[in-house]
């Protein structure tokens, strides 16, 4: 438990991805089974305990030091689990601290009545970091900035395997993943994936611009619309039916309507959309359905989910990934024609003669729910990862707005010490009749290193106020912001939120008073 606690502790303070990977890899290599497997389960969200209610933690704390001191402490620290971890003192007579395996295995067996006494014994035996980690584990919110995919990447790295290999076997395994570590670190056999709803690493496309197209032969390529939804994988194999995000996260629970509609055996690539009648709803509608553990009947009715299929990886027990795109496409079309299904349809191919023709089609397409074109070589097999050459995404030109920088914050990793995260705003009428800036978004990329140095200096020279790590700046610098969409938002003060905003240009030539208004942005809302 102590080693796991130190891992979580380090991860929680370490913002850089590569450093996080290094920490996890070191831990996995140095920690014996089954502890490292349980740790991996905790990091990938594969552990679920009945949990410790806040009231229990509070009562522990009040019993320990009295209500008054506990209240003062909690008030200062601001986090219940951390407060309890800090005020509790290690009892030198409590015996050795529990291992992570012991904690997990005991909690899985313990009844609700037994939990408090067990917990107290562990709190006595652990140090402050150990107690913090234990309580975080129990309350089910690690919050150390590690995604399941990052943890899997670390696993893949220790065994010098591509992450696709790990993802393929992942869903056939369960914590504490002994066969996985045997395979990666001890010459054990590769675990069979048995395809029981396993996730297959997807093939990704590289961005391309109009000018580069002329170096390619249009006859080699097929085009599809690039739908503005979420790339998903529908996996129905070995009797298991699952829906995965592009990153391999199992999102089945949030989309029971899709899962119920699966009456086939196969693995498909497609775009998850909300679709009403024949119309694809804006991305914002889909967002309502994401990140939910359960979904209400009302939500299912008002935001019906739909998958628009564009590739087939596996069909009726047969792996099709080595076939060419054209062959897979033929299989997909034949399969769909044999039995049309309610929540699935086919993403049509866009016919074109040459690049100029296709560019015209792309310009003419103003339909909501399309963010550009996908170009795929007809002879390309389905390759995991982002191979250079076979697949391209040709996105619609972004929307642009001139915004005014309002706040800046320091970045992380290579950019720490640089003011690289900018909050920008647009004008609106204030209640007193004057014009004021309302923040509309935040961006931290899109500029070159040289521009970053310039922006950093500008921020330092024009700071008017500081709030902790945030600097408020004179509202004078116009930033041209590029973004892929606008939606109304109740969470943002300005009432709008931008999709994927980035800094396109620094407009030192433009006075701030001529920047865009919030109303201008609202006009872009579909």
């Amino acid at each position: 438990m102590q080693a796991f606690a130190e891992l979580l502790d380090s991860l929680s303070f370490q913002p850089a991805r590569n450093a996080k990977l290094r920490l996890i890899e070191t831990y996995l290599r140095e920690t014996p089974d089954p502890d490292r497997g349980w740790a991996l389960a905790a990091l990938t969200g594969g552990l679920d305990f009945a949990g410790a209610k806040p009231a229990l933690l509070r009562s522990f704390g009040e019993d320990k030091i009295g209500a008054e001191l506990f209240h003062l402490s909690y008030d200062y620290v601001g986090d219940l689990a951390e407060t309890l971890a800090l005020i509790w003192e290690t009892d030198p007579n409590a015996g050795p601290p529990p291992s992570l395996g012991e904690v997990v295995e005991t909690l899985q067996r313990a009844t609700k009545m037994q939990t408090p006494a067990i917990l107290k014994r562990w709190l006595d035996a652990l140090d402050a970091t150990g107690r913090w980690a234990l309580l975080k584990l129990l309350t089910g919110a690690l919050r150390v900035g590690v995604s399941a995919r990052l943890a899997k990447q670390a696993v893949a790295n220790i065994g010098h395997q591509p992450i696709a290999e790990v993802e393929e076997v992942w869903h056939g395994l369960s914590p504490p993943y002994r066969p996985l570590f045997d395979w990666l670190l001890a010459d054990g056999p590769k675990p069979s994936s048995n395809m029981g709803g396993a996730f297959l690493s997807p093939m990704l496309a590289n961005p391309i611009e109009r000018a580069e197209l002329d170096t390619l032969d249009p006859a080699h390529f097929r085009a599809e619309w690039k739908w503005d939804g979420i790339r998903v994988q529908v996996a129905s194999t070995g009797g298991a039916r699952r829906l995965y995000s592009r990153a391999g996260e199992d999102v089945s629970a949030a989309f029971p309507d899709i899962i119920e509609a699966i009456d086939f055996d196969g693995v498909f690539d497609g775009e998850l959309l909300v679709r009403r009648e024949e119309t694809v709803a804006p991305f914002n509608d889909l967002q309502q359905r994401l990140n939910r553990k359960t979904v209400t009947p009302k939500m299912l009715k008002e935001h019906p989910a739909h998958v628009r299929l564009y590739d087939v990886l596996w069909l009726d027990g047969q792996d099709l990934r080595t076939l060419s795109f054209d062959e897979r496409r033929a299989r997909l079309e034949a399969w769909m024609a044999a039995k049309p299904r309610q929540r699935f349809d086919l993403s049509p191919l866009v016919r074109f003669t040459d690049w100029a023709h296709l560019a015209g089609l792309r310009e003419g397409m103003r339909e909501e729910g399309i963010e550009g074109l996908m170009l795929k070589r007809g002879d390309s097999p389905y390759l995991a990862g982002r191979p250079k050459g076979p697949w391209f995404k040709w996105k619609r030109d972004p929307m642009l707005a001139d915004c005014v920088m309002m706040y800046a914050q320091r970045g992380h990793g290579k950019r720490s010490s640089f003011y690289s995260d900018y909050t920008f705003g647009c004008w609106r009428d204030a209640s007193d009749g004057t014009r004021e800036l309302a923040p509309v978004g935040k961006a931290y990329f899109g500029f070159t290193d040289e521009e970053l140095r310039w922006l950093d200096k500008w921020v330092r020279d024009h700071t008017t106020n500081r709030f902790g790590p945030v600097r408020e700046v004179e509202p004078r610098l116009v930033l041209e912001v590029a973004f892929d969409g606008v939606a109304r938002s109740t969470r943002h003060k300005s009432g709008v939120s931008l999709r994927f905003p980035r800094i396109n240009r620094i407009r030192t030539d433009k006075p701030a008073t001529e920047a865009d208004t919030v109303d201008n942005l609202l006009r872009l809302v579909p």
Partner: protein
Amino acid sequence: MATDTLNLGSLNPRSWLYPTPRGLYCAPGDFYIDPAVAVPRAVITHGHGDHARPGHRNALATPETLAIMRARFQDMPDTQQQALKYGESLRIGEVEASLVPAGHILGSAQAVLEYKGQRIVVSGDFKRRPDPTCPPFEPVPCDVFITEATFALPVFHHPSDAGEIGKLLRSLQTFPERTHLVGVYALGKCQRVIKLLRAAGYDKRIWLHGGLASLCALYQKHGIDFGDIALVSDAVLETFKGSIVLCPPSAIADRWSRRFFDPIPAMASGWMGVRARARQRGAELPLIISDHADWTELTQTLKDVGAPKVWVTHGREEALVHYARSIGIEAEALHLVGREEENEA
């Protein structure tokens, strides 16, 4: 020193030692203790900026503290300096004054004041754990103990120094190519961290930001050995890969730090015990190393000095007052001006 028989019967201690807008004032001796502004006569407990200020006409302190003040305030030619060694006593007006080790930094002292058979101890800042750069805190039995309260909450239990230094050395193993940039306060923390690293067996060169140079030299003059230390500014073509560089906390976020290769910002301070505080300071490797007493040390000290009255200054007074009262001590908060919340912790 006077009798240990405690005398609270007739004399109200607040009648001869009390806070004023200029600082804590001792009336029968006509001097201030760690005043916030320049005064005719001051007794200084230690050299940190919120206790030792320039411009006093007379300043009384330990020889080490006076040396620190001279280093910080351009030799203080206009201040008449009076050195009082640990354990020696001196009559100032009607008051018998002496200085006793506080264990906080080099030269740090508690001011022990006696008047009409009553003894008040002003702790200044103190800690109880061993520090190779100064003699340990000596508890002095007294009628009134005036204690600091920087870390006076039960959430502050500073872990062992060796364990925290171990965290730094382990990080160097995990990231052997990265520069470990450790934010330390120039006076006290810097020198203690160097000594702790040496005690842990780290014998490579330790690099210093220029702002740390003069006080390290002063410590060396007082016989404290740091091993191989060198200034970053003197290094030519040094990559600093995998090295430890000490700097003032503010330098980590400064453009100064850009010369280093992929640095890990660490910070050595008692505040690092609370995660939100560590994050606010931008620490990726927080080291809980403090020159102040933690909750256990504070409460133990109240028991050790056995004072029936305790006055609590600068910090989280409320919790310590509450605790002291719960064990039968007459406690109250003493609001002093000019103490910095948490800069020199």
